[in-house]
């Protein structure tokens, strides 16, 4: 029996094992080599894999992603780190126009992974706390994953590296060293398939659909509801593109009441897309309007009182769930 490890260590292990398994895998990013990364995800990698495979770059996110694309066209499997995922905005064009469209345009797959710390709850302020997923979910040709557990963090980074298409891997920095989600992981090699949601908790009365760090709040809310005699189901999407439409349809048909919870802001957040999908696939099974708890339409604030107000939490989820249950 192994030791329980953190979410960050799971990402680290996944990267390490893939680099050992496949010589084509290499990493590039800012401060990832000598320094070991701003969050130490790549600590010790330079010593193990050398500077040809652990490449410190200038501060040039578009350059980093562009170079990853070029290397992938040559048959390599690059993993590009964004020091904070907020900086992925600087590489938007390379990702959405070069990487995402190459296979469709002329048949060249771009098997790259772009990973980095996303999300709030650590007083990072407006430029170190963002959830940029929907810019990329809106881009055909990309895949977007957002693990919320330690097991998934490892399984999804391995799946992302082995995938034939460009994958945006959003790791949640609030979860990095959170003791509560430490897990003992299997000894053997495993992946978590991209495009498959996970049922974290089975229930009959209401479905909480969520991903990333928000699944903790949903699990807490579900535990509280249980004490009130209400059986809540929690569906962790894990992959945002492609969405697991079958799992969303199934839980909707089962409970008839759906509350979607995400940390991303409201307008254009994935809750809107899921709601439309439910309308298309399971409208007649609904026993109330699809509700959503999200961050409000504002930048992520810095100070504690502001950020605590801004982010979804278990209390907000619980309140919305009770309202929906009494509809």
């Amino acid at each position: 029996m192994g030791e329980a490890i953190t979410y960050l260590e799971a990402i680290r292990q996944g990267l390490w094992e893939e680099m050992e398994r496949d010589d084509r895998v290499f990493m590039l990013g800012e401060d990832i080599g000598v320094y070991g990364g701003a969050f130490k995800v790549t600590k010790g990698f330079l010593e193990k894999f050398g500077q040809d495979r652990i490449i410190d770059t200038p501060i040039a996110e578009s350059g980093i992603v562009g170079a990853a694309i070029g290397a992938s066209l040559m048959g390599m499997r690059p993993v590009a780190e964004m020091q904070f995922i907020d900086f992925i905005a600087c590489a938007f064009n390379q990702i959405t126009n070069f990487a995402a469209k190459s296979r469709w345009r002329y048949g060249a797959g771009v098997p790259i992974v772009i990973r980095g710390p996303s999300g709030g709850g650590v007083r990072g302020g407006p430029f170190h706390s963002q959830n940029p997923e929907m810019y990329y979910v809106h881009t055909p040709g990309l895949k977007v994953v957002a693990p919320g557990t330690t097991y998934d963090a490892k399984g999804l980074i391995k799946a992302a590296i082995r995938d034939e298409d460009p994958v945006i891997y959003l790791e949640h920095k609030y979860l990095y060293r959170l003791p509560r989600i430490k897990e003992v992981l299997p000894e053997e090699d495993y992946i978590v398939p991209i495009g498959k949601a996970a049922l974290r908790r089975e229930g009959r009365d209401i479905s909480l659909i969520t991903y990333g760090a928000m699944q903790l709040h949903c699990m807490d809310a579900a535990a509280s509801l249980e004490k009130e005699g209400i059986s809540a189901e929690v569906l962790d999407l894990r992959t945002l593109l492609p969405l697991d439409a079958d799992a969303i349809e199934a839980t909707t048909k089962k409970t008839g009441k759906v509350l979607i919870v995400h940390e991303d802001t409201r307008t254009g957040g994935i809750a809107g897309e899921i709601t439309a999908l439910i309308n298309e696939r399971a409208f007649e099974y609904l026993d109330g309007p699809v509700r959503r708890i999200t961050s409000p339409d504002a930048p992520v604030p810095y100070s504690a009182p502001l950020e605590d107000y801004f982010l979804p939490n278990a209390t907000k989820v619980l309140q919305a769930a009770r309202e929906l249950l009494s509809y």
Partner: protein
Amino acid sequence: MPRTSRSAVKKQTKRGKPAGDSHSRRPADSLPASAQTPAQLLDFYYYLKLNRMVEERLSALYRQGKVQGGLYSSKGQEGISVGSAFALAPQDVLAPMIRNLGAMLVRGVKPVEFFLQYMQKEGSPCKGRDTSLHFGGIDRGFVPPISHLGTLIPVLSGVALAGRMLGKNLVALTYVGDGATSTGDFHEGLALASVKRLPLVVIIENNRWAYSTPVAAQSLLSDLADKARAYGIPQGVVDGNDVLAVHEATARAVDLARRGQGPVLLEAKTMRMRGHSEHDDASYVPEEEKQFWEKRDPILLYEKHLLSSEAASQADLSRIESECAARIDADLAIAEAAGGPRPESCVEDVYAPTQGAVERPGEETLRLVRRS
């Protein structure tokens, strides 16, 4: 890229020239200045003419409504495409921009592919999904551009990086316009390539106009190649309308890059002799500027050189022109006969197949190319 060498050799044989020393196989770094053989000098001419005549035919097709959307001419810039592409070795990778049709021809792309592509046929290299020169995979020695300028410089840095990791001894070469030297990607790509000493050659095609914006409104520099100083990398300026000068300068740049002294930034000074795209009459270009450059047409200059140096006779030049015309007629006939794409195919190939093999874009084109 054996395809390139084969086509060049075949070309010579077809014209009755000895295929003897297979110059096009010789790595660029072993090419001393002005070492072109008589056969190679005529090869340059063949591709210059083919480049221009394919584009003239495309322009005619545009007027007939058979080519739609944007059509970009490289008239006046053919010497850059042809001279630089001939400086590459088979293992090298070239990323063309929209005015580098000639470079693609030199490296083995057939006229039929441009016709299929621009005429939106099912068998086009992009299956009708994308246009212009946006095709040609790494297996043929190309990275196709996207329309966002400057983006190829980071991407080709990655090609050069991977080439080094894989021990391929390759040089990556791409082009950028005077306008796109203002983009962030131009600088990010050079920043990365310079500190990693990547085997990359970037040719700035300074054609004086970025759409309607003159180069003076783009930069205060007299020579855009001076941007290399910001990265501490070798630079050069060359007359872009002199195909031999471009070839020589590119060969030197490629040599430096291959020896690990790159990246290299080369500026080829030229003039865009037509509008930005076919719809653009370029009325913003002063008349005297047009007249000045018309006298400096790269094909005209090269013909004069060939005749005055007695490297070719007028009969040689006429014969080559006829060869180009015959080739274009034959290739266009294939493209004209090809069908249009299936409408529903626009949603295919967005992702890798999850099971089984499906035909990739470009495979039908290769079949048509083999037939041509």
